[in-house]
């Protein structure tokens, strides 16, 4: 099976506003797929519906042997999905160490010290979410994902509001996960870093999605260049 994870024909309306009409994306083992699109194009909504944290109006989510029009985050998590939303996956009132130990306890994953060191979390293990910077929160969220060893990781805007050095660490960790066979679906506006990281680009526009192919192919797409990348992005 080529696609490990698929969200197909997703639609969502908020009041009078039709955010998504028929949007689709997929995750492929060992590949990084990135959703790109202007603010308000529905990337986050699409990802949340696919992850089961928001109810879509129509569409279906398929993950391995699981298929549902009303997907459950927990049911997919048991099958190997891990979802990191835009505001990260740490719970308030618990330390980073609490989260790491919980994931290890449930999934029996080892090498916590190695993950902590690789993501530079040694000094923040006893800090709660409120005491962390945006970069530290995202690094901690990614550490949870690495310890989970998911078959598929949905991670919304991992490089947003993060210092360039943290972006490097995060992109490296995401690439490492993909190289280990995880299907990664990500999103964001950090064009240069995301185009370098990604194997495939999906453009969210006008409530729908368009597969643009590899980053090189996306960078040649005239409409994508004109309407999304703009003059600065076109230099990629």
């Amino acid at each position, binding site marked *: 099976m080529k696609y490990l994870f698929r969200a197909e024909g997703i639609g969502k309306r908020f009041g009078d506003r039709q955010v998504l009409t028929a949007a689709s994306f997929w995750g492929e083992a060992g590949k990084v797929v990135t959703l790109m699109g202007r603010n308000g194009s529905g990337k986050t909504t699409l990802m949340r519906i696919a992850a089961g944290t928001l109810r879509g109006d129509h569409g279906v989510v398929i993950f391995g042997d699981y298929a549902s029009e009303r997907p*459950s985050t927990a049911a997919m998590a048991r099958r190997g999905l891990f*979802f990191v939303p835009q*505001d990260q996956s740490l719970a308030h*009132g*618990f330390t980073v160490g*609490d989260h790491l130990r919980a994931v290890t306890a449930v999934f029996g994953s080892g090498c916590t010290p190695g993950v902590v060191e690789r993501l530079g979390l040694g000094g923040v293990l006893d800090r709660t979410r409120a005491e962390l910077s945006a970069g530290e929160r995202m690094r901690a969220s990614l550490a949870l994902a690495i310890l989970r060893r998911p078959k598929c990781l949905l991670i919304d805007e991992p490089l947003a509001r993060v210092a360039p050095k943290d972006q490097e660490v995060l992109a490296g960790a995401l690439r490492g996960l993909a190289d280990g066979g995880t299907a990664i679906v990500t999103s964001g506006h950090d064009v240069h870093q995301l185009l370098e990281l990604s194997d495939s680009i999906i453009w969210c526009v006008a409530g729908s999605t368009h597969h643009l192919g590899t980053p090189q192919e996306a960078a040649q797409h005239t409409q994508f260049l004109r309407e999304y990348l703009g003059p600065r992005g076109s230099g990629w």
Partner: protein
Amino acid sequence: MRLFPPQPFLGDVVRTTLVIWVGFHFAFAVGGGGPEGSALALPPVVAGVLLALVVGASHLDRSARGVTLFLANLGLSTAKVSLLALAVAGLAEMGLQIVVRLLK
């Protein structure tokens, strides 16, 4: 398949459910009183409503703090965690009813 959240998340579910149960029970007892003059022993229907409110409020609290999503990422569904909260609040309610009857 795991039945309970790992620590310290299990302790958090139990603790917050009990705190919310105490708050709602106090409000119900002060507001309506119970049968036979006891403010603590609630009629079964009222106790059922109280348990439903406790489970709902504890779910909202966990969702607002991001605990629901974290536990979902561990494979623990909202229904399963809510059942745990119901068990905790139900046991607390039953224990209180027994104590009130023994003290009468």
